[in-house]
């Protein structure tokens, strides 16, 4: 799985191997979220190529909707559909994109919600769920489509501190189950514990990358050192 040149972010070249958890850190405005959104073309790159699971998603005439359904995405603000229950949120794309019959879609939704610990909340509406529960439901919504890769855009930034743990636990379980993940986040402890690789971005370029132990203990660049010191204190 490779992400070719992403010229919009100036010469970014990342390869993500299957089952890898790549963690992207950097100050706000450094282009992390933009990079993530380019990966399923919610943001349109000016040039460059993005290849997911062997097929180019930047190619002319690429079937975006089919591709997106294999790339799960989790947002900072959850973006659950407020007019649908947790189950309804998970089932919508199953029914409309994959054309599954209602009963089957519901079974898949139940399984997906079970995986994130929300089996009993299937009929609850988003405004009846806590922030952490909402975010886990959003993860279930992406998971149900059996994505090859999951993109997390600051999944815990909008949560109260005591609710962050639940969401991180779900992400850790996904990692253990072999999911390929790209995570933009400020949760450094989680990065140290779960990430295979940490990428530090600033000003739209990759400043440095490496195993979390190396990057945090022994940053090579001044900008990385400043950033790591700031977030660790």
């Amino acid at each position, binding site marked *: 799985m490779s992400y070719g040149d992403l010229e919009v972010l100036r010469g970014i070249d990342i390869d993500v191997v299957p089952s890898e958890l790549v963690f992207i850190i950097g100050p706000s405005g450094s282009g992390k979220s933009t990079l993530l*959104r380019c990966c*399923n073309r*919610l943001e349109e790159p000016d040039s460059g190529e993005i290849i997911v699971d062997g097929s180019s998603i930047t190619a002319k005439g690429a079937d975006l*909707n*089919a*591709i*997106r*359904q*294999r*790339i*799960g*995405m989790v*947002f900072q*603000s959850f*973006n*659950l*559909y*407020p*007019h649908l229950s947790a189950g309804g949120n998970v089932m*919508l*794309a199953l029914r*409309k*994109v994959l054309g599954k019959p209602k009963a089957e879609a519901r079974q898949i939704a139940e399984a997906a919600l079970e995986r994130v610990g929300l089996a009993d909340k299937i009929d609850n509406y988003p405004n009846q769920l806590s922030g952490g529960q909402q975010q886990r439901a*959003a993860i279930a*919504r*992406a998971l149900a*489509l059996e994505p090859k890769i999951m993109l997390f855009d600051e999944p815990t930034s909008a949560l109260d501190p005591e609710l962050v743990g639940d969401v991180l636990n779900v992400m850790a379980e996904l990692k253990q189950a072999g999911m390929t993940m790209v995570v933009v986040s400020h949760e450094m402890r989680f990065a140290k514990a779960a990430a295979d690789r940490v990428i530090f971005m600033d000003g739209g370029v990759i400043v440095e990358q490496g195993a979390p132990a190396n990057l945090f203990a022994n940053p090579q660049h001044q900008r990385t050192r400043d950033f790591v010191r700031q977030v660790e204190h």
Partner: protein
Amino acid sequence: MTQYERFLDTFFNPEVMANYFPKIVEGLLVTCQIAFLVVISGIVFGLALALLRSYRWTPVNLAIIFFVDMFRALPPLVLILILYFGLPNVGFTLSGYVVLWLVLTCVLAAFSEEIFWAGILSVDKGQWMASRSTGMSYTQTLLNVVMPQAIRLTIPPLTNRTIAITKNTALGMVIGVDELLNEATTAQAFSGNATPLMMGAIAYLILFVPVVYLGRYIEHRFAWRKV
């Protein structure tokens, strides 16, 4: 006759009432019928325009905006007179009924397009992104994710606007549509008595007071949605 008796005789004359009751009811029914047709066609047309506008094809959008502006800015009576008196001279005769329906439909479509469009814009961008990220197409997102949320926001203003435009069915009087106001004024002219006008006023109240209350109730229920 005392002053009071004369007043009753002029405005609440039982004989005149009995004579013209059927006519007034007929007029009321015609008013209801046109109102119903206008509400259905106007809102459907307006919704279609708003959905079309959301695709943001520039020439189409400019045409929609022009249409909406025209029907928001021109008095409906002006449009009614132009069509009713102008079209026959170019060999295209529409009945007063059809002209009234057509003009009010376009007016309601214009206003409801604006309301639906504002509703669509009010839905958070994250909703679009979340839906598109699961592989839903633009149209699927619009219909399944955005519209159900937009509709809630549009119901109070749409109700009030619909009531206001529906009352314009009274304009049919000017071009001879047999609606309530026309029947009431005709009866008043024939009988030389003001009782039919009173009956007309009461009929309007019977028809529209419940609707106004409905509008009030809906506005109240959805008040929490207002920003």
